[in-house]
């Protein structure tokens, strides 16, 4: 190979390699204003203990709402939420499945009289902060003050699923139109959280369906 040919070859090779380095550069561009703040919405586990700190104005409740950009779909492929569930349940026919976030094991919405309720199922390892802290966390999500452990426990109702799994059920109403129906199920070394959050009027209508949903929960 002549030296000229050799240098042309090496310049071309260096050009190709430099072309491949583009991906690690700072990008700068101008786009029209976007309506939504961001399509990537995260999920955070509940606090280990204590109540819900104040959020900046307009910030979505942390550990509560939204979806991650990694979808779970009919056609397979990657999904962080596609982890194997150790529990199964039957969903009422009027609930619409929603995209799972990275943390949700079940995600549905229910609509009645133009009101929308959000149903979520989460699982966390261990006690995930315990019963009282999690009830107070839910209370914080609808603007209610935390309760002492004895009072918080008094608000709960112990129930069992049809298959005999013990559940702790709670019906929270903040008195200004919003509420949460929630249930915590400790199964082995996992804590499962089932929650229906929405306007109190909708919750009153959907309570029996939610209880049926809870009763349908069973081990795989």
């Amino acid at each position, binding site marked *: 190979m002549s030296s000229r040919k050799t240098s042309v070859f090496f310049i071309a090779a260096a050009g190709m390699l430099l072309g491949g380095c583009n991906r690690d550069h700072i990008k700068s561009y101008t786009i029209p204003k976007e309506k939504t703040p961001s399509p990537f919405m995260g999920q*955070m586990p509940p606090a280990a203990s204590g109540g819900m700190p104040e959020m900046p104005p307009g910030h979505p409740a942390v550990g509560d709402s939204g979806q991650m950009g990694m979808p779970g779909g009919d056609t397979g492929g990657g999904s962080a939420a596609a982890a194997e569930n150790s529990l199964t349940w039957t969903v009422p026919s009027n609930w619409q499945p929603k995209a799972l976030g990275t943390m949700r094991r079940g995600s549905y919405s229910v609509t009645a009289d133009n009101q929308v309720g959000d149903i979520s199922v989460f699982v966390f390892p261990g006690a995930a902060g315990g019963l009282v802290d999690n009830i107070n966390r839910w209370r914080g999500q609808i603007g209610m003050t935390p309760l002492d452990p004895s009072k918080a426990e008094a608000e709960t109702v112990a129930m069992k699923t049809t298959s005999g799994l013990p559940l702790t059920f709670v019906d929270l109403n903040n008195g200004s139109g919003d509420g949460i129906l929630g249930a915590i199920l400790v199964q082995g070394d996992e804590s499962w959280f089932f929650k229906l959050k929405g306007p109190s009027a909708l919750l009153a209508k959907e309570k029996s369906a939610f209880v049926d949903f809870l009763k349908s929960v069973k081990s795989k």
Partner: protein
Amino acid sequence: MFKDLKTLLVRFFTSLELTVVLLVMSIILVFVATLDQVNLGIWEVQQKYFHSFFVMWRPAGGGFGIPIFPGGYLIGGLLFVNLVAAHVYRFKFQWRRAGIIIAHAGLIVLLVGELLTGLWQHEYQMQLAPGETKSYAESFRRYELAIIDTTDPKVDHVIAIPDSMLAKDKPIQVPSLPFQIVPRALYPNAVLRMRTDADKDQPSLATVGIGPQVFAAPAPVTYKPDERNLPAAFVELIGPDHSLGTYLVSPQLGMPQQFSYAGHDYTIAYRIERRYMPFSLTLNSLHHDVYPGSDIPKNFSSIVRLRSNDGKEDRIVRIYMNNPLRYGGLTFYQYQMNSAGTGFSVLQVVRNPSWLMPYISCLMLAFGLLIHFLIMLFGFVRKRRPAVAKA
């Protein structure tokens, strides 16, 4: 002396022994990489074994790597040099070898194509709900720190910093920003939860925004193909005369954090890397067809409206399995779909400027072998004729 060295190098790079050794090494590489997929998953294995010059072994706790085996780029690169050098120094052009030369050229195109694909191919995804319009796709695995100047009422000026730069632990200066970005900590995978009284003895690095109220802890990096790392980072913004504070940023936070400085409004967010395009796609409808009387999927298709920013293109396209949309140097494949409720469709977006090279290579290989076969056939027939005539 120089001549001796040159002869030695030429002999080494043109030797058939080198070809054999490299082929054996590539067999070993593919075998070991296939086994290691159990631990690392396909994406990480590709990076570690094939898209690298050396396979590195990183001792636990050590920040350095020790090369233990040549990687895909080195073996492929040497094979390429070997093949080219052999042609330049050994083969003399003869018409009867034309087929072999074309076939070898096809092999060179294949090797170069694989290198270019490794260097240039980018894969993204685009999730669309019916009626939704997007002019950007999102990376499968990469994240970026986006600092957006939102002062202008009509447009946003975006500065997107790749996460690899955050990992370097060096101050980042962007000419259009009046402050430096100083990475303080980066967790490639993290668990975030609300901070409580119990966390008081572990104060947050964050001083402003939502960060001081959130507890962020590093989590083991996942290599599973169906899981995704959710990183978190602490970045300090430092102006010419004072620090603007340290922010905790993570895709797990629900929305970008806002701040104002030097008369400009900004948002800061650590988000999935985006690639904006000079056109937009709107999902008109999605279809999940099943075989009659069963739940067995027959076809997944998305009807999208393609509109270019310059207004020249505005058409309806049907994207379905094995029938992607190719536009603007990108290919949109039907990737995932959730047809429950209103549903959503996910398109895989691939940019690969060298996608034609394997096809060209295969054609050259087939053509070269065909020519070689014909030349041999005619030679054989010609040799046979005089023999038959003599008989």
